[in-house]
């Protein structure tokens, strides 16, 4: 286990270096001119040149990259052209918002997906299984963006059950910042009114973002459970006279979890990708909206910063998935 962690940690640096080189090259080969965008459509050629110089965009590409890497080594991600603030500060502000949304969505997806998957497998082809199939196919076929708009139209505009979006109501005080995740910070500091309001704002976007992973987890869980339930050791467990609940929860579930864990790891990527559109509809100030704006504005530093952070999240997630494998199945050794 220790060796695995060590090996993965050694891999982080070259992978991030590769990602930075690739992103840097790709963002530079597009014929965009951020200096022109910053200076504005009416700026003179001298004005544009001045901006180019101020942001170091007039330097040769290799030098720009070398400067970036040198700054990165000091954990300096540069300044965003669009927000006019250090990228590190932007990420510290926007990443927790997305993390909060993604965790909530993943939590809903896990609870709902596992429950539906287990029930569908146990009661295969019965009414409850048909219902599970309906939810799963529905969740997979409805794009999050469209679902978000529908949810907003009915649950906010028509019924008034939920706020339209944002992280907190206008008059709700912010909790002291610990993680930047408002619900968690409110919980840690005992701000119950803020916690309730934060959860109230979180539910709708989290449900929308979580529905597709929920569907995926439900289907994989069902298939995996069905396979496991036919294994000889399950027959043996039943023959021993164990209760059905013990058979399912202690013998079948754990063995059926391996493919689900793999899928959860992959869903993290979906969460970050899908968050762009969901955040846009629910005016959620997260990293998805930040990165979308950065890309269309050729905000090189912001694009680099977001890419590196997402790459890092992927690396960490993969390590976690490997660790969970070993925990679920003690036969797996690294």
């Amino acid at each position, binding site marked *: 286990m220790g060796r695995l962690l060590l090996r993965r940690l050694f891999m982080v640096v070259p992978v991030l270096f590769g990602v930075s080189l690739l992103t840097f090259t790709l963002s530079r080969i*597009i014929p*965009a*001119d951020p200096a*022109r*965008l*910053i*200076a*504005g*459509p*009416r*700026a*003179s*050629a001298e*004005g*544009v040149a*001045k901006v180019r110089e101020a942001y170091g965009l007039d330097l040769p590409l290799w030098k720009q990259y070398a400067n970036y890497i040198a700054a990165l080594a000091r954990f300096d991600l540069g300044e965003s052209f669009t*927000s*006019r*603030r250090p990228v590190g500060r*932007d990420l510290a502000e926007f990443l927790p918002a997305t993390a909060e949304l993604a965790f909530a969505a993943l939590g*809903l997806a896990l609870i*709902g997906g596992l*429950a*539906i998957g287990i*029930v569908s497998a*146990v*009661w295969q082809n019965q009414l*409850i299984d048909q219902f599970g199939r309906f939810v799963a196919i529905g969740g997979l076929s409805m794009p999050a963006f469209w679902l978000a*708009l529908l949810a*907003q139209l009915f649950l906010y*505009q028509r019924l*008034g059950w939920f706020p*339209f979006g*944002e992280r907190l*109501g*206008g*008059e*709700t005080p912010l909790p002291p910042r610990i993680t930047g995740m408002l619900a968690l910070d409110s919980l840690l500091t005992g701000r*119950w*009114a803020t916690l*309730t*309001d934060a*959860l*109230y704002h979180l539910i709708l976007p989290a*449900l929308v973002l979580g529905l597709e992973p929920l569907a995926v987890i439900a289907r994989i869980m069902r298939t995996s459970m069905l396979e496991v339930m036919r294994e000889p050791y399950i027959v043996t467990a039943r023959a021993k006279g164990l*209760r*059905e*609940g013990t058979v*399912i*929860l202690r013998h079948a579930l754990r063995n059926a979890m391996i493919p689900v864990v793999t899928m959860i790891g992959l869903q993290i990527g979906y969460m970050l990708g899908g968050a762009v559109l969901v955040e*846009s*509809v629910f*005016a959620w*100030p997260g990293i998805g*909206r930040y990165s979308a*704006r950065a*890309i*269309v*504005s*050729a905000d090189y530093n912001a694009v680099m910063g977001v890419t590196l952070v997402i790459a890092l999240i992927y690396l960490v997630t993969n390590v976690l998935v490997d660790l969970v494998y070993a925990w679920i199945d003690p036969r797996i050794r690294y």
Partner: protein
Amino acid sequence: MNRRVVVGLAILGCIAVLLGSCGPARPAGTAAPTAPAGATPALGRDPKTLVVAIYSNPSDLDPASNNEQLGNLILVATTEGLVRAKAENIEEFEPQLAERWEHNEDYTVWTFYLRKNAKFHDGTPVNAEAVKFSFTRLVQSGLGMSYILSQFITDPESQIVVKDEYTIEFRFDSPTPLLIKALSSGYGSFVISPAAVKAHEKDGDLAHEWLQTNEAGSGAYMLTEWSPNQQVVLTRFEDWWGWEQYPGFRFDKIVLKIVPEMATRRSLIEKGDVDIALDFSPQDLEALAKNPDIVVHRSETLAVRYIVLGEYGPLADPRVRQAIAYAFDYDGYVNDVLKGTAIRARGPFPHKLQCWDPNVFVYETDLEKAKALLEEAGVQPGMEIRFMCEEMDWPVQVGQILQAQLAQIGINLKIEQRDTSTYSGIFYGDVQWPERPELMAWGWWPDYNDPTDYAWPLFHSQAAGSAGANAGFYSNPRVDEILDIAPSITDTAKLCELYKEFQDIVVRQDPAWIPLVERPDVRVLRKDIGGFQANPIYVETFDFFRLYRIGY
């Protein structure tokens, strides 16, 4: 535990998850998300707070560099200039920080008399020194908007003279009739607090970095919160000199919520959770106009949308450009696509711009004439040209109409969409044909009401590529000549005679553009918002201090 019990528990679990996600309509112990204590029941929120749904982040508040409209919406609320163009007649000016002004006979000396009761938000007085400091900073900054004054003022130290605490003079070697217009511009010519600039200056940047997300003005509202991707909050400045002119109910707070999704903005305004919302599609506007609680406010502006006709490659011959102009379906675009929400542009100038020619040549769709012109120019059927635009609805629709029309006269049009930064890089870049597309879609409006300010960056050969906004590399010696001599002409009749010839050249004789429509400003307001006034020259901005809530 038997199988049924397990299944039953699992079902209960599922139901619990689903119920949990529906939750109570409003959590106990928490106020409604937008309903503070003391709100009037009818509105459900604080009536003294105006909530506006905007579509993106404002990106810059430094008057010397800001060029985008959301930044300008905040700038005009927080920062003032010496004079403003009148909304009802943009040829005339009204006082802002200057109470009155005068010029000598040959327009070489301008004198402005400042009001004595104006203060900056930091409490320091607005006086002649502050005006000199602000305009000197603008000129010396060399930033994007500095040309507004630097085209007239090259040596601020000698040309801007403080006569006394509240009197300032501008001196020129040659007639400068345009100064008053440049000072009324919605760009650049704002007066800011010298104390604030000096306090936040870093490495000789004239506080540019600080001013990008802060303000140092004297306007009716102060910037009190700037949360990227969330909201911008403006708070009433009690010491503003102008409040006595606007007695009665005015807003204490303006909250600009950043709501990127159009459908969300529509939901918010329909439900009444915001008072004003910006940027909707013609289809949304059509639906919103039918809502009795909503007013769709349209106002004319000086903004024109057009197609650039690149003067190179297959379009080098003016007859090919004329043929393309004849081919476009103007009525279909205005009536069917835009549903009559914009008026057709007649010529390259918007009709409210000084020297617009009401008799300018206007193309009507005529495919036969277009074919004949192509034949005359020796164009073979099957010629392929490219139309490039941003990934936005309107230019794509324009491209599709043109594509269908050109197909009928034997031209294959390829539509290429690019994201904003890439498109901007090409439009304002020096990429040459054949990499440069033959046709491009764009929009433009002047900094102030003057034909030269409007036309020089678009049509002068020296403004081609990265030197300006002449994206079609248009070059016509007579057009250059007119643009060069126009700024010094003080006789309006003579000026307009020259521009009449100019308009005929760039549309009929040697087309540079296909002018499409004059784009109106459209704002969607709840019907209880009164006092709204639009000014055609200050595109996409309006004054918050004029607004009030009807019934309060």
